Structures are given as structure tokens and as C-alpha cells.
């Protein structure tokens, strides 16, 4: 049998992609209320003034999902998870600088 070779392309979550509040909630399998809470906590920083104008980038989805994992797996509260995310991004930036030196 000739097994058909399916090649999945998927959606590239690049720097140009933007999500509305609803789109981000659906992609992140969560509620709009929770996304709003993350914005209030400063974990997510959308462009736009009001919730209806908010546009989130791919990094927001990544952070949303990481917060969920950190909370579920390590029992960290929201400010703690936010701090972990910020520190992780800083470590990543430093690591990149160092490997370039």
C-alpha cells in the first residue's frame, strides 16, 4: 500500500499575527474573563485601549499557555507565575547575548 505522505503546514505564529480577545481565549482554551485578568496583572500587554480594541501577539498566547502550565504543575499563584515568565525571558535574552559574545 502506498501510504500517502501528508505534510502539515499549520499556522505560523510569527510577529505579524494578531488575535482579538475572543480569538486568544479560544486559542488558549480559556475564558475572556481570565485573559482580562492576565492583562490587569500585566502578564499580557495587548495593543489598543479598550478590551474590544485589544490585539494580542503570538508571544501573548505563549505566555498565556505557560502561565497555565506553571500554575497547574507547580502550584504558583498568578503574580508568581508572571514573575517566573519575566525572569525566564530575561534569562533567555542573557543566554543569547552570551552565546554571541
Amino acid at each position, binding site marked *: 500500500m502506498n501510504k500517502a*505522505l*501528508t*505534510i*502539515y*503546514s*499549520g*499556522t*505560523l*505564529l*510569527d*510577529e*505579524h499575527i494578531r488575535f482579538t480577545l475572543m480569538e486568544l481565549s479560544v*486559542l488558549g*482554551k480559556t475564558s475572556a474573563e481570565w485573559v482580562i485578568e492576565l492583562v490587569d496583572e500585566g502578564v499580557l500587554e495587548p495593543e489598543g485601549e479598550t478590551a474590544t480594541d485589544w490585539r494580542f501577539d*503570538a508571544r501573548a498566547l*505563549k505566555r498565556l*499557555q*505557560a502561565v497555565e*502550565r*506553571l500554575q497547574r*504543575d*507547580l502550584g504558583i499563584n498568578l503574580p508568581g507565575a508572571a514573575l*517566573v515568565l519575566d525572569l*525566564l525571558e530575561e534569562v*533567555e535574552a542573557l543566554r*543569547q547575548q552570551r*552565546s*554571541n559574545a
Partner: protein
Amino acid sequence: MEYKDYYKIMGVAKSATADEIKRAYRKLARKYHPDVSKEANAEQKFKEVGEAYEVLKDPQKRAAYDRIGSHWQEGQSFTPPPDWGTGFEFSSTTNAGFSDFFESLFGGHSPFGARHQRQGQPFHAHGEDHYAKILIDLEEAYSGATRTISLQIPEVGADGQIVNKTRKLNIKIPKGIKSGQRIRLAGQGGAGYGSGKNGDLFIEIVFNKHPYFYVKNRDVYLELPITPWEAALGAVISVPTLSGKVDVKIPPNSQTKQKLRLKARGLPGMPPGDHYIILEIVTPPAKTSEARAIYEKMAKILPMNPRVELGG
């Protein structure tokens, strides 16, 4: 199926108290959490630890596990004893992604899973999102690539039993992708329950370390060693870029650390990245008296103080 030594995985004695087990778990969970850890195969370790804790934290399961006996070795071929699970009160778990060893002892078809079958109301839920990482070479990001990845996917059968399946997926990696960016494959994650939709698969792309290029965003950097005379007199040098060799003109009186930019020769995109060349002057050693004489002559004819900014 291989025997799993949960005590060994947790790094605790068989006599460990519930508190000791909890502390060991917290510590290991932090160490191997895939979002935090830089350990190789952190994800696999994290799952193992989670599985071990799932059994050892529950007095019923721990007692049942202990009854299998201590003569087993980690990784040894294992079949559950025929009287397995008799005489215990069982609790339910959701344990997607655990080992076959766990599934046979505590999963859907085991006595531990038997009371877990849902009754009455049909149950609908989203499948879980899955996450994976692929390492690719910079050249692959430049030209695009197709990669086959193998994923261990726990699947829920019609009878509610969870089976680990290896699934191969061919994935197109679009050209110009940046390290850290992700590809989302809708519906390729965990199976949904009832009429719930499948979860998604998120694949993060990470670049392998390149022998001489390094990347910031879409810009590619190359440290280019040149001789003192090439730097002083200027030269045309053949330089590797992602799009192949390019002849680059080194202007006269160039210095170390000086940057040359080849526009739009970095990673493709909108806008494409640039290719930067960072000059690095390498001096020939003064090994012979003749070579020393040349350096002495330079010192006399070209006196200079490169340390003016250091205060003399």
C-alpha cells in the same frame, strides 16, 4: 512493558513519609518543569516524576504498588500479577501521557480505573493542547524544510482506556521562521472527549548552534578574521552567507570590531534580515628574526597608542 521504580525516580527511600515524598516532588517538579528547565529531556523527566508522584502520594496506590514487591529493577520486563488490585479501595485519575506500566496498574482497564468510568450524562471536553520542540539548522530556516517528527500521543479509546501511540507527522517549516516562533497545527493535539474538539499541537522551532553564524531576530552575524594588511590596505574577500559565498570589499584602514552590512542577506521575511560581518584582525606571530624585524620596523614607523581611552 518495563517496571518503573517510582521511589528511585523520586529519589526517596521506600520508607519515605508522605511529607518527604511531597517535598521531593515539589523540588523535582521545579527542576524539570519544561517551561523552566534547561536539562536535556526535561519534559520526559517531568512526566516520569509526575507519574511517580501520582502513585506515591495516594496511600491506596502506594500500598498496592509496594505489594508488587521490591525485587523488581527499573526497566525490567514486567507483567501485572493476576491478583492485582484486589482488596483496595480505588480513586480516579486523569493521567494522560503516563507510561504503559502505569496504565496497566492504575489506568482505565485496571481495577483502579474501573470505578472511574463515567455514567449517565455524556461527557464532552476539549482535547488537551500538546507542545513540542524541533531543533533545526539555520540553513533550514533560510530555505524552508519539511521535518518528520515522532510524538508520543496518549489516545483515549472508545472504551475510555488511554493508550500511548507513536504518531509521525510531516511538518512544513516555512522559510524565514525565527528561533522561538511556533507553528500551530489545529486539531493535532490530544483527542477530545465525547463531542469535544481535538486539542491543538504547538511546535516551537529552535535553531541549532551554527559553527560560525549567529542570529539576532532575522539578522545573521559572522565574525570574519582578516590579516593586518587586508585591514590596512583594503581587500576583496569571499565571505560565506546563507545565500552562498559573496565577494565583500573590505575598505582600507578597517579595524577590528568594525561592522559591514550586507542588506537583506539574512533570514527571509518582511522585512528580511541583514547579514553583518564583524571584522577581526589576526596578527601573524613573530616567530623568525625576519618577522620580528618587520614588527620592530612598524613600531618605529607607525607608532601608536591604542589605549588612549584607558587614560594613557
